[in-house]
Structures are given as C-alpha cells and as structure tokens.
C-alpha cells in the first residue's frame, strides 16, 4: 500500500513537489481552497475545520499510520459520521447526529485520511443534478450556470475544484460516475458488495454502492484498496479477496478486448460525446487493445427497470422516516393521531422527487400491480445480466460514454422527471448487474465542458478495469485540466 502511494498525486493542489507537506499544512490548504470556491459552488453541507485540524496535529505527531496519512478528504452527506450531522440533504433528517460512523469512513480515517467536510447531494441520492437538495443546488466548477450532475455532485465539484484529492460518493444508478463525468474527474463504482454500506443511509439496497471520486485512476485505486473488503456489519458485503492493485496498474493493455455496444450509442447522444468517445477508443487501440463490437439487446431498457426497482426499494427503505426516532417531526396539533403525525411529518420532511419515488414505489408494490411492474422489472434485470455475461465471453471490458450529453443548465430538466432520468442511460446497467464501472475524463465539448468515458468490467475484476483506465490516463492529459474557476473569480464577486 505505501508503495502504491508513491506513484500517485494524492497531494495535488495541496502540496509541493519537494518534500511532502505535513498534515496540518495539507488541511489548511484544503480549507483555504474550500473557503475560496465554496461561495460559487455550494458543494459542502458541513465543514469540519476544527475537527480536521485537531486530527491533523495528532497525525503530524505520529509515525505514518497508513497510505492516506494526512490526506484531506470529503464525504457525501449520506455517510454517517459519529458526532457530526448527517443530512442526506433532506429536511427529514434535520437535527440528526449519528451515534456511529460508516465503515468506509472508519477505514479512510484508519488509513490516515482527514475528513474536512460533508458534501451536498440530491436528497437521499435521488437525482442526477444535485438540484434536489433541501440545502440548495451545487454548481459545476467548469460553468457555474450548469449542474455538476448528481447525486454525488458536491463530492464531484469538491474534487474537480481541487479542494480535496479524494471524496466518497454513493452510486445507485450512476451517482458517482455521472457527476465525475460531468466534472472532468474519475469516479469508481466497485462491484456490488465490495465496499461495506454499513452507515450509508439506504436508498435502494440492491443497487446502492459506495466508491471514490478522484482526479487520477491511481488515486481511485488507493482509495478503493483502503475502503474495500469484507465487513461483518453489512450482510451484503463480499468476502471475495481484494485485488492487488499495485501490481495491476501496469499500463499494459496489449491484447485487451474492449467491447462497444454500437446499437446502444444512437439517438439522443450528443455529437461531441460521440466524437470524444471515438477518440478515446483510438487511444486504447494505439496501445494494442482490440475494439470489438458487442450487442447488449436489453441495455436500452435499463432506465425503466431501474426506476421500477429503485423506487420500490426506496418506498420500503424510507418508511423508517416517521418522526418518532430521529429527524424532523411535524408540530403536533390538538387531537392529532399517530397517523396524522406520520403523514404530516413525511409531507413536510421529504422533497418533491423523494415523494415522487416513494409514491411510484408504493404503487408498483401494491396489490394488483406487483407482477406487472415490479416482478417484470426484476425479470428484465435478469435479461440485462445475461447480456453482459454473454458479452464478457468475448471481451474484457465494455466501453460507452458516461453520459449522453455534457453538463446541462441548472433548472433545465427539473420539471420533467423522465428527461432527468434519461441522463442515466449508460450508467444504470452497472447497478442492475453489480458490475464494477468507472468514469474517466476523455475530452471536452465546446465550450470547455468535460466528457467522461465509462468502462465496465467483470464482477470483482476491478484489477482489469483500473488497469485499462490507468493506461488511458498515461496517454492523455484530460485529467490534468482543472476548471479555471478560482483564477477567474478569485477576489471578485460572483456574477449572475
């Protein structure tokens, strides 16, 4: 692990080349950057400056405790942190202070990382733009009039703006990869069960994953190595041994077979996206990889299946928010019954998209509709899995764009849920199948809006996936481009 770290750029933006800064210096620089860009971005729900500096002082006084010693990190605000408010960007969790910490966060801290804050998200992870937040929208650092994507938009914006080199996100239908793609950074969704979800506020349990957002694949590999592996506190956690990622990142993709589902890349995909995608394939081909056409006949049904399954699971998972044990409770009126309290608490506490999904999920699970919608979706989910099983008989990874378009304008899609859902067309399959999947920067639309390349691998084969993604970064510089936000707006008031 310590060896792996040497080749990485974990301290980009927070450290010089000659001699590593101490933890205090790293945290101070991270917090200074945060103070500088936060007024424009609104990426953070909570900043933990004092706690971070205390911890940094303790780390500076100790021998290195792990591969992330003194590295500032940010956490999506649906990961529980003992003693620090955790909101899921929902009013229904106002006042909630978890008495325990998520396993992934514990592992980051045990490796020496220092949490500097909690980042904004679409409420409970339900959205693709970070606009569905009770705390207000986050903006894209590349263009403040556009969304950073979502739901891990705060984490993506924080990494893209070089506030932190690593942030954790969660991904239920693309919520790590899609904002990573739209913010020009790396986002990894590991195999289902790889990273413990103990302490993640549940949205859709058969689809939820935790993973890192970083600027380089090498950094994502380190973060994944730290947070991955079996955890007895999560019953869906896998005991499959973690890969040796240090050995995996060789740059060698000679003979690697990359599958491209051509029929899936048609309608509704922006020309700039297709162009960047084609160029990205050429980068692999130049390194000796073979580009192979594949067929994923059911992948186009991913969105409807996803929305039937995730809403069903959400309606069940979010039943716990009832105003009794934590979070918001409605002001009681005379003669209120328990049922009145539940209904008013939930109406006041949840935002529109969350209510919409709870309603849809309740409907598809209700008597008379279960077979037609929910069971049917689960059957088609099997067909999607079979498509990928067949594809992986002839290829090693599958490549698509991460998103059909570059980052869209704030407010552009908020009134039409179906249009918003279509952002996830390329990402949902990896949640339905549990396959590991990564987005890496692969180009720019005009004007300078980043575009992502998505690679998806075999179950538990993050090693091949990360090897391919890292090889791409050895031949390209897209990931070294940072938004000009700070330079352009430093010391000046925000326009608009």
């Amino acid at each position, binding site marked *: 692990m310590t060896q792996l770290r040497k080749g990485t750029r974990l301290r980009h933006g927070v450290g010089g080349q000659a001699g590593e800064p101490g933890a205090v210096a790293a945290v101070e620089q991270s917090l200074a950057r945060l103070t500088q860009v936060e007024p424009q971005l609104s990426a953070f729900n909570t900043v933990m400056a004092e706690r971070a500096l205390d911890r940094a002082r303790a780390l500076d006084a100790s021998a290195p405790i792990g591969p992330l010693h003194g590295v500032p990190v940010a956490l999506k605000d649906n990961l529980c942190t003992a003693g620090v408010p955790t909101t899921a960007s929902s009013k229904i969790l106002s006042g909630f202070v978890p008495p325990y910490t998520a396993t992934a966060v514990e592992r980051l801290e045990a490796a020496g990382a220092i949490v500097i804050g909690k980042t904004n998200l679409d409420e409970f992870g339900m959205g693709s733009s970070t606009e569905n937040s009770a705390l207000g929208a986050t903006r894209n650092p590349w263009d403040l009039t556009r969304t950073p994507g979502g739901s891990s938009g705060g984490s993506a914006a924080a990494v893209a703006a070089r506030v932190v080199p690593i942030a954790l996100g969660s991904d239920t239908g693309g919520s790590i990869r899609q904002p990573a793609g739209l913010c020009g950074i790396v986002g990894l969704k590991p195999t289902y069960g790889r990273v413990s979800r103990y302490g993640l506020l549940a949205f859709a349990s058969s689809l939820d994953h935790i993973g890192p957002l970083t600027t380089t694949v090498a950094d994502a590999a380190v973060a994944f190595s730290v947070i991955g592996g079996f955890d007895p506190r999560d019953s869906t956690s896998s005991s499959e041994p973690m890969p040796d990622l240090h050995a995996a990142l060789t740059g060698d993709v000679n003979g690697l077979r990359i599958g491209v589902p051509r029929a899936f890349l048609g309608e509704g995909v922006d020309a700039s996206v297709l162009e960047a995608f084609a160029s990205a394939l050429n980068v692999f081909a130049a390194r000796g990889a073979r580009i192979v056409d594949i067929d994923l006949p059911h992948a186009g049904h991913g969105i409807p299946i996803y929305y039937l399954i995730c809403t069903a699971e959400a309606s069940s998972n979010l039943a716990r928010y009832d105003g009794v044990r934590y979070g918001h409770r409605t002001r009681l009126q005379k003669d209120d019954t328990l049922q009145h*309290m539940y209904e008013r608490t939930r109406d006041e506490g949840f935002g529109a998209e969350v209510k919409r999904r709870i309603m849809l999920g309740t*409907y598809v699970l209700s008597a008379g509709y279960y077979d037609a919608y929910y069971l*049917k979706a689960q059957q088609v989910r099997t067909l999607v899995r079979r498509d990928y099983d067949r594809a992986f008989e002839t290829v090693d990874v599958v490549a698509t764009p991460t998103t059909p378009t570059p980052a869209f304008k704030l407010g552009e899609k908020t009134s039409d849920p179906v249009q918003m859902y279509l952002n996830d067309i390329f990402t949902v399959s990896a949640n339905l199948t549990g396959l590991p999947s990564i987005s890496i920067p692969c180009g720019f639309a005009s004007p300078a809006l980043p575009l992502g390349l998505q690679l998806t691998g075999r179950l538990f084969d993050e090693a091949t996936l990360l090897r391919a993604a890292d090889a791409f970064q050895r031949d390209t510089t897209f990931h070294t481009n940072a938004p000009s936000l700070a330079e352009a707006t430093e010391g000046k008031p925000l326009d608009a």
Partner: protein
Amino acid sequence: MSLLSRQDVQRIAELARLELTSEELDLFTRQLGDILTYVEQIRALDTTGVEPTSQVLNRPVDRDDAPGATLTRAQLLGNAPDAAPEAGLFKVPRVIG
C-alpha cells in the same frame, strides 16, 4: 388516457403515509402518469420462465443470529424529537383512545 387518476394517487399517498397538498396531488397525477407511460415499454418483452433478480450476489445474505454489541438505549434515544429518557421510551401521540 392517463394510467393513473387523481383518486389513485390519493390512495397511493395514503398507503405511503404522505399527506399531500392539492397542488402536489395534481402534479404527481400528471408526472406519475408520464413515468408509467414511459416504463410501459418493458411490458411488451417476453419474460416467460425468466427468473427474477432481486439481488446480484447469488448467495444468501442471512447471518447467524448471534448477540453482539449494539448502540446503547441512551444513544438511540438521543436523536428522538420527543423521548422520555428516564423511562427509556420514544413519545408519540396517543394511539388508543
């Protein structure tokens, strides 16, 4: 024709324990109708004999029923909007009249 009536939406809201406003009922009737129209496409697919996927692990997720350390009662009551810590209870409106 919309797949959902306003009455259907009202009934779903009751099942989901959501007291929706009149505006929300109108909005959701339209939007849920749009979403259901969109997802109709999968109903045409032939799935005869196809096993449903409820989770992708292909293994049971049960654990042994072994007692272990848990959060304390005080920790659990600490976040309650209304609690009686001395009695170790959450407080709610009267349930039995």
